[in-house]
């Protein structure tokens, strides 16, 4: 099949998938887990248990804090020790539920058997309700609640469901391992989402640097009875896995600035999300575990792991389990080297979106001293959104140039990091462009609010 890729910009960082051949291991349970209430995009969840309550694994701990929000379930069985302030991996304050682990007893109704259930529910509402009840969120990084995305407000209609297995970030291998080890479950999950969306074509998008995954997924599709599910190989290029880039690559359509992918008839879901959907609908198992890659450039291959962890396990516990933080590590990152977040607090607990523990050594991760821009244009050549980061950087530093920033589309930045990656002068482009984006979003929001107020006032007059 022909390999596709997105049309604007992109870079080719070194693959570095050292942990690709490490099978998924199951992480042992720690003594304590800390379940964060801020695990998805949107409002924090509201706890519905009290201190001292006995909880079972898979039991609901908290309910959504708003329309865009998700249920949070207990990853273990034990006693709620405290509900109070904790720190996330950036050191910022969050509310978390501390649970003393007492065994691994699951809530009734959850099917833990390994058998594949291929029979799909008849009603799409059943699928959506089960996904919502299981607290499934997008596991590709943005942690947007999946049931909201799978239920677009009419008249928008999905024409294609893209299962994102491109895993374009260097180092990360968790999606890859899952595609090798549990391909059938991913396909059933895709079929479920396809049904929930009213039967659009489903493409499972995989970059061509993972031929084994392509083969494995193709085999699973062939052995299962679903219609309109295809494997779509893609040329390796970062950021292929970006929602907008994937839509451009596969469907040759571009989402308008400020619009949602559904406006172009596309719904993008991560391969791991598809697996979580399978477990939620077919097995009644809520999202309480995820797969994490423990990797890095200063870690021997035998110390690299892919592990199935319970959400809420402290990062430091996982690091210890994998053999401790390597001596040469200068930066610990949750996520890939391009878009991951640097961990400021290793004692923080894992959340639904945690996908890796990446150790980078001083020489690759330290920022280079900033030099003057030589106007080589590499940043704008690399930008997958076609922006001109050098210009946005200049306008931001000049201060008070929000209108010009908006005209030059600072708000379209997807923070993929291509500009800063490719800058030969080591100029901290993304650091500044991100701030510029915040400023522009501020004026856009203020304008929308003003327009709304004016409309309201006009209404009241009449």
């Amino acid at each position, binding site marked *: 099949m022909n390999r596709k890729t997105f049309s*604007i910009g992109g870079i080719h*960082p070194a693959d570095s998938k050292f942990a690709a051949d490490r099978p998924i291991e199951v992480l042992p349970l720690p003594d304590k887990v800390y379940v964060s209430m801020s695990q998805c995009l949107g409002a924090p969840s509201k706890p519905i248990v009290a201190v001292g309550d006995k909880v079972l694994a898979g039991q609901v701990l908290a309910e959504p804090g708003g329309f865009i929000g998700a249920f949070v379930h207990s990853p273990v069985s034990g006693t709620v020790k405290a509900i109070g302030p904790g720190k996330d991996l950036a050191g910022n304050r969050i509310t978390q539920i501390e649970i003393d682990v007492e065994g691994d007893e699951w809530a009734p109704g959850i099917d833990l058997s390994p058998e594949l259930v291929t029979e799909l529910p008849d009603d799409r509402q059943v699928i959506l309700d089960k996904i919502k009840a299981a607290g499934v969120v997008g596991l590709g990084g943005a942690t947007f609640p999946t049931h909201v995305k799978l239920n677009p407000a009419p008249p928008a209609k999905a024409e294609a469901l893209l299962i994102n297995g491109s895993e374009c970030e260097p180092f990360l291998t968790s999606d890859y391992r899952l595609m090798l080890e549990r391909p059938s479950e991913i396909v059933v999950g895709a079929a479920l989402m396809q049904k929930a969306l009213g039967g659009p074509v489903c493409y499972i998008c995989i970059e061509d640097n993972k031929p084994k995954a392509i083969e494995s997924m193709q085999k699973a599709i062939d052995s299962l009875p679903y219609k309109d599910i295809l494997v779509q190989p893609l040329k390796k290029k970062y950021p292929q896995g970006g929602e*907008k880039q994937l839509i*451009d690559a596969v469907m040759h359509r*571009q*989402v*308008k*600035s400020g619009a949602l992918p559904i406006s172009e008839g596309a719904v993008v879901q991560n391969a791991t999300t598809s697996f979580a959907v399978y477990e939620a609908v077919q097995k009644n198992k809520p999202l309480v575990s995820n797969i994490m890659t423990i990797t890095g450039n200063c870690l021997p291959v035998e110390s690299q792991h892919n592990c199935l962890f319970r959400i809420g396990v402290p990062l430091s516990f996982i690091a210890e389990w994998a053999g401790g933080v390597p001596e040469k*590590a*200068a*930066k*610990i*990152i949750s996520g890939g*080297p*391009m*878009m*991951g977040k*640097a*961990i*400021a607090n*290793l*004692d923080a607990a894992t959340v639904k979106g945690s996908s890796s523990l*990446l150790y*980078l050594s001083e020489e*690759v*991760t*330290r*920022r*280079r001293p900033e*030099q*003057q*821009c*030589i*106007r*080589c*244009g590499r940043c*704008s*050549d690399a*930008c*997958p*959104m*076609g*922006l*001109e980061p*050098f210009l946005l950087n200049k306008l931001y530093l000049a201060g008070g140039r929000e209108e010009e920033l908006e005209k030059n*589309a600072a708000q*379209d930045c997807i*923070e993929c*990091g*291509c500009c*800063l*990656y*490719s*800058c*030969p*002068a*080591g100029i*901290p482009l*993304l*650091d500044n462009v991100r701030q510029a984006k915040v400023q522009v979003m501020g004026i856009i929001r203020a304008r929308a609010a003003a327009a709304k107020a004016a409309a309201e006032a006009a209404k009241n007059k009449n």
Partner: protein
Amino acid sequence: MAKSYIVSGNPHWHSPASTQKIMLDVIIALCPAVLVSFLFYGWSAILTMAVSVASCVLLEWAITKYLLRKSSTIGDLSAVVTGILLGMNLPSGISWWIIVIGALVAIGVAKMSFGGIGQNVFNPAITGRVFLLISFPAQMTTWPVPHGFIQSVDAFSGATLLGKVKELGAASVADLDYLHTFLVNIGGSAGEISALALLAGWIYLCCRGVVKPWITLSIFATVAIVAAIFHAADPAQFTGPLFNLLTGGVILGACFMATDYVTSPMADWGGVLYGFGIGFIVMMIRYFGSYPEGMSFAILLMNMTVPLINMAFHHKKYGR
């Protein structure tokens, strides 16, 4: 945590590209042309370039240290590139003090007074050359006879082909051996001898992704088309496309001077327009101007339009 770890925004690693490496690539790309000038003009060509490089680097160092009181920027090798390019644009064996004056104008006036690398409006090496051309016309147009290791038999001594055309008309070069001119073009600046060597360097830069080919190709195309039209109209008065491509500074300018990052447009189509401007102006100067060659002037003139071109041409944005 016993050890403190680094925290910063994404991305957490970066490409190996650096200003220094880019400049090193340019220096490597210039090597074939430097070698050819050494073969033809011997040590005097090397000496000219050495003086030029040394004075450029020293001047930049002195200016950053004593005038601007900033950390030195000579480590990025951009002054070395300017020095080589300036040296290549001078007749080999020119007096050393003229070279130093050229370097002073190139680095001091054209580069550092605008704020150093990345801030200059005009290409430093060309500014230096044009200043010398206007100030010392006699010395700057006295081309030495090759006295190096290879001595071309039919060498033009003391005049360039373009100079000959200006004086004697287009017919005087009608029976030119173009293959020979492509390989060896004697009579001119030290760096202009071999089109082949210059093109080899340019192709290296393109392959390494240092420059994009659009500006250079646009200049070549414009020069060829303009020359073809005029030549077809009156072959006796106007020289043909091949002659105009191979002689003078078109190849050196198009490959190494017009593609200077700072003084050329950022967007691809902007680069095409910029190249068209240079090609058109150089042909107008050659056909109708009083100078036999106009590459330097053409590039300087188009340098001025770059901010405007940058305003008009942008990258294609996603979803817009």
